[in-house]
């Protein structure tokens, strides 16, 4: 059986820049920072990093109450992103075989706020009677995927890869396989995540957060920069619509790109630290699957979160594979690290960069750090045709993921 070609025909985003792809791209174009000092975080004893990139939730009551009651913040973001992605793809689900339409949406975990609310309600008196009926549905690990499926009333494959900050790329890679194998016709794929002091705290106790810019939040995080001091958590969701190429052409759909390569692997060495050697293998295998040489890549959208160790490992890995010829930028300086959603939010931005022929630079990269040198850092916008892009995503657990997308000719 010949594998189908898989293309991306729609994008939907909820990011710290607001609802919609247009809000994301205008934030990037303006070189704005969505990072701010978080009110009330001082109450968490020991929390060093008091900055974050929150989403201002809007229009959630447009989602019918009985669909919304099982949604935490991240699922609301996902439902809104799904609406935009389907509209962008020109798809009306009423005309589709609903058993062949599904969604694959990953995250580190369920709604951080809902999980915390549940324990805060229950634990003081160990009273289960205070929990409402849908609290668990907001907390469970596949909450975003389930809620999108319920919201859209679709009946196909529903999956939720949990791979922390690589979750969105895992979702897209998995969705691509489901389409390639002919198991599904249409899939909404991506990641969703929430900002919460306990989420930032999980990085903070490892000293991986940015703690030196609490009074200057608009200057952090600083990927690849000499003065970087750690990551800043954000939140949001982005979903891409995946279809097979022939079907997309048949219905005259706009095609952002074809997914030509994907790889995910693990370093097997350390639960929190990233590792150059395994990143190199990941990128090389993704390129090999795409059947291209490194020099054929026009842009690399890095994972680079602005941690001291992670940025160095990624820069070295990119240098090993690509040398200094391919433009590289990270978008974390604009809206922080959206964790499980980062792979798809940043991929959506990169696909729009491909559409617009314009690479946005790494924000706050004022002085390239010595340990991140040797690659072609983008420090000012670059105009030019982008035919092939690479998206990296790395995660706790030593997980690496790389996706290769190529513009479809014609």
């Amino acid at each position: 059986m010949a594998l189908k070609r898989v293309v991306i025909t729609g994008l939907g985003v909820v990011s710290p820049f607001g609802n919609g792809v247009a809000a994301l791209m205008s934030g990037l174009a303006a070189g704005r920072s969505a990072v701010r000092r978080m009110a009330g975080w001082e109450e968490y004893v020991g929390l060093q990093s008091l900055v974050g990139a929150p989403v201002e939730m809007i229009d959630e009551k447009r989602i019918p109450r009985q669909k919304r009651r099982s949604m935490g913040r991240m699922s609301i973001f996902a439902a809104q992103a799904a609406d935009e992605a389907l509209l962008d793809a020109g798809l009306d689900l009423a005309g589709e075989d609903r058993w062949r339409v599904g969604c694959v949406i990953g995250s580190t975990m369920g709604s951080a706020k809902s999980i915390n609310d549940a324990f805060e309600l229950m634990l003081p008196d160990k009273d289960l009677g205070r929990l409402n009926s849908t609290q668990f549905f907001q907390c469970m690990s596949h909450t975003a995927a389930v809620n999108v499926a319920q919201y859209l009333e679709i009946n196909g494959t529903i999956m939720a890869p949990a791979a922390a900050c690589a979750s969105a790329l895992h979702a897209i890679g998995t969705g691509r396989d489901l389409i390639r194998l002919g198991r599904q016709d249409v899939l909404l794929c991506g990641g969703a995540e929430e900002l919460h002091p306990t989420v930032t705290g999980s990085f903070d106790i490892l000293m991986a957060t940015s703690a030196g810019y609490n009074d200057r939040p608009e200057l952090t995080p600083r990927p690849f920069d000499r003065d970087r001091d750690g990551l800043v958590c954000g939140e949001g969701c982005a979903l891409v619509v995946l279809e097979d190429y022939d079907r997309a052409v048949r219905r005259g759909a706009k095609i952002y790109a074809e997914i030509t390569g994907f790889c995910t692997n693990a370093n097997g060495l350390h639960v929190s630290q990233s590792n150059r050697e395994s990143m190199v293998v990941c990128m090389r295998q993704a390129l090999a699957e795409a059947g291209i040489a490194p020099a054929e890549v026009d842009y690399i959208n890095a994972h680079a979160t602005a941690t001291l160790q992670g940025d160095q490992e990624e820069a070295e890995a990119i240098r090993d594979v690509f040398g200094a010829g391919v433009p590289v930028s990270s978008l974390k300086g604009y809206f922080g690290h959206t964790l499980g959603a980062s792979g798809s939010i940043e991929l959506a931005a990169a696909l729009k960069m491909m559409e617009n022929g314009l690479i946005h630079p790494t924000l706050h990269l004022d002085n390239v750090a010595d340990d991140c040198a040797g690659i072609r850092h983008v420090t000012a916008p670059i105009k030019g045709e982008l035919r092939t892009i690479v998206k990296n995503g790395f995660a706790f657990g030593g997980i690496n993921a790389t996706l290769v997308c190529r513009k479809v000719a014609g």
Partner: protein
Amino acid sequence: MTEQEIIEKTNRVFEEAFEIEAERLVPDAHIFSDLGLDSLDIVDLIVALQKSFGVKIRNEEAVRDIRTLADIYRFIATIKQDEAAKQG
């Protein structure tokens, strides 16, 4: 607690927890067919009434017979009277 206080508190639960407009909250409104609640909502209704009235009703057999808003008003009034009688 007066009957009017019970009605107001109960109706507030329906407005806040179930986002139902005040004008639809008439005593003979059927909570399933008229107000659109389902089995999950009943769990939340019990949690909200318990919190609102400071009572424990999850295991009360009479909960199962509730069909209309008026049934809820009567049910809460009975619980409150029993409570008062025990205290008295």
